[in-house]
């Protein structure tokens, strides 16, 4: 069996893929109890009888999670079922406190949607969505000793903080006909889902924290022979690669699986239908625990919960809250703002699009807004190792700061000092300018006095200026700026120097 490349695999076979994306909702509380839904707390501190599955405890559906799920469904163009229900998915595992997961099975709340995905070159691919359903997350096992897996561990610990966190699982229909763009489409699809959940404000969309997780299903089938339609060629056996948790990893997982399966098929060996684990360090997959027979989850309707029955009026009200498709919004804003493709791509990559849009909306030019967010603020965020959105200031504050520059009350250098104060929590830009005394000295008499003193201290320079060597005035400007601690308008200082020297500017 010879190793193949992705490109070779795509030349030999026709790929079919599908993606399941799990989105962790950012509701204040968990899916079926009142525990806080927060990432990173001490183990087993955000638990109660319900999410611990203690005897007697019962679930109650979080209506905010239902709202988020319906909004997500609407953003994905799904139909919203008038009456949907939860089911129990039964399987034994220590991180699953009740030993069943409350999920949706035969009646998901959102079904039959489609999503336009825009590739880097502008190509639009429409992905058909089968369903988007609600479910609860499981806890987290930590295996201590051995290799870190459950096999060979000395003991295992379970943290149920994540148990019961609300999830929406979005399942695509099989995606065909993408050929060698399969990996790119897969990546762009997940990126679009991430952008949508952020735009909806229903999840922080942080893949590195597991807020958005993807499972990638991939199979290969022979290319159609002449006279045959590719649609008539049956699908091959698929693998399901679990928990691929970055956009880059999605692309790589598709590459690896396509190459692996193609190598097997060309060597006349079968592809096993199985679950596979993704390994970020080696960019490869390995088989999950082999299953001799299909899992039987013994689904049945959850008797402890009533059906989800959103009124038509409510659904329509929620439809009115769905933001513009991220790709369409980007195209529109690029046009309006006059940014280059490269500038726009950098803005999107830095997660600054919404921040810039909000800054522009607050009255700043797009160029100035971009300069702040992509320049000074990106540098600060980078130093602090936080996201731009996590900086403690609002787009409105940036607009206010730029307003102070535009009106001449401060210059660029002072603006950076004012920003420092704002980030330090000293107040609004105007307040910081006032409290730190940053305002440009615009009182001519004060400037004239400083210029006179500087000229008196450097009579040789005055002589040079009067000789016509106007550029020598720079030394006097520097001295005046120093004397006014940078708060003078350098242009005005220069005018006064030339005036005093009796030279026309």
């Amino acid at each position, binding site marked *: 069996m010879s190793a193949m490349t992705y490109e070779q695999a795509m030349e030999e076979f026709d790929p079919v893929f599908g993606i399941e994306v799990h989105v962790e909702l950012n509701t204040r509380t968990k899916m079926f109890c009142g525990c806080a839904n927060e990432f990173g707390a001490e183990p087993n501190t955000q638990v109660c*009888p319900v999410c*611990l*599955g*203690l*005897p*007697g*405890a*019962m*679930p*109650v*559906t979080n209506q905010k999670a239902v709202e988020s799920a319906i909004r997500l469904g609407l953003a994905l163009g799904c139909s919203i079922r008038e009456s949907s229900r939860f089911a*129990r998915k*039964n399987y*034994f595992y*220590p991180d699953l*406190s*009740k*030993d*069943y997961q409350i999920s949706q099975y035969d009646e998901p709340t959102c079904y039959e949607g489609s999503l336009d995905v825009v590739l880097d070159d502008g190509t639009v691919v429409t992905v058909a969505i089968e369903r988007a359903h609600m479910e609860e997350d499981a806890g987290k096992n930590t295996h201590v000793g051995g290799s870190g897996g*459950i096999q060979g561990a000395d003991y*295992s610990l*379970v943290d149920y903080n994540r148990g019961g966190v609300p999830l929406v699982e979005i399942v695509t229909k099989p995606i065909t006909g993408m050929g060698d763009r399969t990996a790119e489409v897969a990546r762009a699809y997940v990126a679009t889902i991430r952008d949508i959940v952020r735009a909806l404000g229903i999840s922080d969309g942080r893949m590195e924290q597991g807020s958005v997780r993807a499972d990638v299903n991939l199979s290969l089938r022979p290319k159609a022979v002449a006279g045959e339609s590719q649609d008539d060629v049956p699908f091959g056996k698929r693998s399901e690669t679990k928990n691929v948790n970055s956009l880059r990893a999605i692309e790589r997982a598709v590459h690896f699986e396509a190459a692996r399966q193609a190598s097997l098929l060309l060597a006349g060996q079968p592809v096993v239908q199985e679950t596979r684990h993704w390994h970020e360090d080696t960019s490869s997959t390995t088989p999950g625990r082999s299953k001799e027979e*299909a899992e*039987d989850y*013994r*689904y*049945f309707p959850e*008797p*402890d*919960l*009533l059906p989800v029955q959103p009124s038509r009026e409510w659904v329509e009200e929620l439809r009115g809250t769905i933001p513009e498709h991220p790709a369409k919004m980007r195209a529109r804003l690029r046009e309006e703002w006059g940014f280059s493709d490269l500038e726009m791509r950098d803005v999107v990559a830095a997660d600054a699009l919404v921040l810039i849009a909000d800054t522009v909306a607050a009255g700043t030019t797009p160029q100035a807004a971009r300069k702040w967010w992509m320049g000074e603020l990106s540098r600060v965020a980078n130093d602090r190792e936080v996201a731009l959105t996590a900086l403690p200031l609002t787009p409105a504050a940036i607009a206010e700061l730029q307003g102070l520059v535009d009106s001449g009350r401060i210059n660029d250098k002072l603006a950076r000092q004012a920003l420092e104060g704002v980030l330090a929590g000293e107040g609004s830009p105007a307040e910081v300018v006032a409290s730190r005394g940053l305002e440009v000295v615009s009182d001519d008499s004060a400037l004239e006095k400083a210029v006179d003193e500087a000229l008196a201290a450097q009579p040789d320079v005055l002589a040079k200026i009067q000789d016509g060597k106007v550029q020598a005035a720079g030394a006097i400007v520097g001295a005046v700026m120093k004397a006014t601690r940078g708060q003078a308008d350098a242009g005005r200082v220069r005018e006064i120097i030339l005036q005093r020297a009796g030279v026309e500017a």
Partner: protein
Amino acid sequence: MAIDWTRKTAAQMADALAAGEVTSVELVQAHLDRIAAVDGTVESNSVHAFLHIDAEGALETARAVDADRAAGVELPRLAGVPIGIKDVLVTKGLPTTAGSRILEGWIPPYDATVTRRVREARMPILGKTNMDEFAMGSSTEHSGYGPTRNPWDLDRIPGGSGGGSAAALAAFEAPLTIGSDTGGSIRQPASVTATVGVKPTYGGVSRFGAIALASSLDQLGPCGRTVLDTALLHEVMGGHDEMDATSLDEPVPAVVEAALEGAQMDLTGVKVGVVRELSGADGGYQAGVTQRFEESLDKLRAMGAEIVEVSCPSFEYALAAYYVILPSEASSNLAKFDSVRFGLRVEKPTVEKTMLATRAEGFGDEVKRRIILGTYALSAGYYDAYYGSAQKVRTLVQRDFDAAFAQCDVLVSPTTPTTPFKIGERIDDPLAMYLNDIATIPANLAGIPGMSLPSGLAPEDGLPVGFQILAPAHEDARLYRIGAALEASLTAEWGGPLSAQAPELEVAS
């Protein structure tokens, strides 16, 4: 001679407390003494109605109630009246096992909603009553802690699963108890111990904190020796609870008022339907059971009720459907007993083996039988044939009830086909055991309320016979009105409550 307060009704105790004729401490102590005298242990072949006694807790509540009463604080009606709670309800700080060894030693960190309401009603909790393991059974023989015995005949079963709650009443160990009814676990024990038990409308009482058997069938309910007492407890337990999504969002029916109205013994204009399929008309019922049932119908007629016969043909399939739905839900509800977070743990080298060993050791045979049945019924490929078909039968049963209630106000039947059988008699014959619930199961499938109250003693064996009343959903008050009328009429004939005729129990020295 000093008053034996344990013989009084809960209503009488409440009135005497209010009038200052007795203190709650005296009431609690009298019941603790009675329990100490007759409850005994499994080994002593005594009643064994209680799995856990909380003497100190009960006395503490009683002392606080007495102090508040002395201080003139306004108190709930049943404040100071002691109660026993079926071990299916979680009680913060008190052991809760649901009759299973797998929960031996577990102390819940929280209260069930009904437990909380009992505490808010200021009722001293005497302890936790015995039950078939996870409420699976009709005899309490399947308790992991040994059977409860029927105070009417210690060789006989007290019914199940709530045999402990019923026997505690019949043995005068408690004036009120709480039960849970999934297929008859309140009504059948009431029937065989000559006590009163009510399964409210599904959703009428919060299930939060009740260890689930079959979630779509389970309902908690009140148990007492009289219809009025049962009504008083019903109003304490009932009402909407946001912790139970299936809880009805409506006020508790006015059942106390209905019981008082019924005691006036006027049933003019009331139409009572006899369900042909549940009346023993097709045979299979003990002669004395049928005889007492007919006599009770005469009493109702004498008070002005019109008796009509109705037919519910699909009830024939109810038992079969029940024994698919119940094990299916139970197999899932009981999965959480996996040793990871609470209860028994039999340590093995891997978590999977530990789970298997714990469940093998901790669960009894009947529980294992039903988990296997339910797991099978829900399996891919069998789901439609079993669970799917059972749900269709459930719909048919509901339609039969709808049609029957279009013709009458309440439906009636004997609660059980026979008087209590002997301990051990059916333990190896699950089907014979299951048949005991033939008349009580349809109400659970349809979610409607039902009551069992004493109808007399069968002439051939002198053992209690129960009379069942069923009403449409939300109409729990009808049970109490008709039940109180029948109770008044029969008590007048007997010259006192039937419970007073129970044989004296041997008192431990």
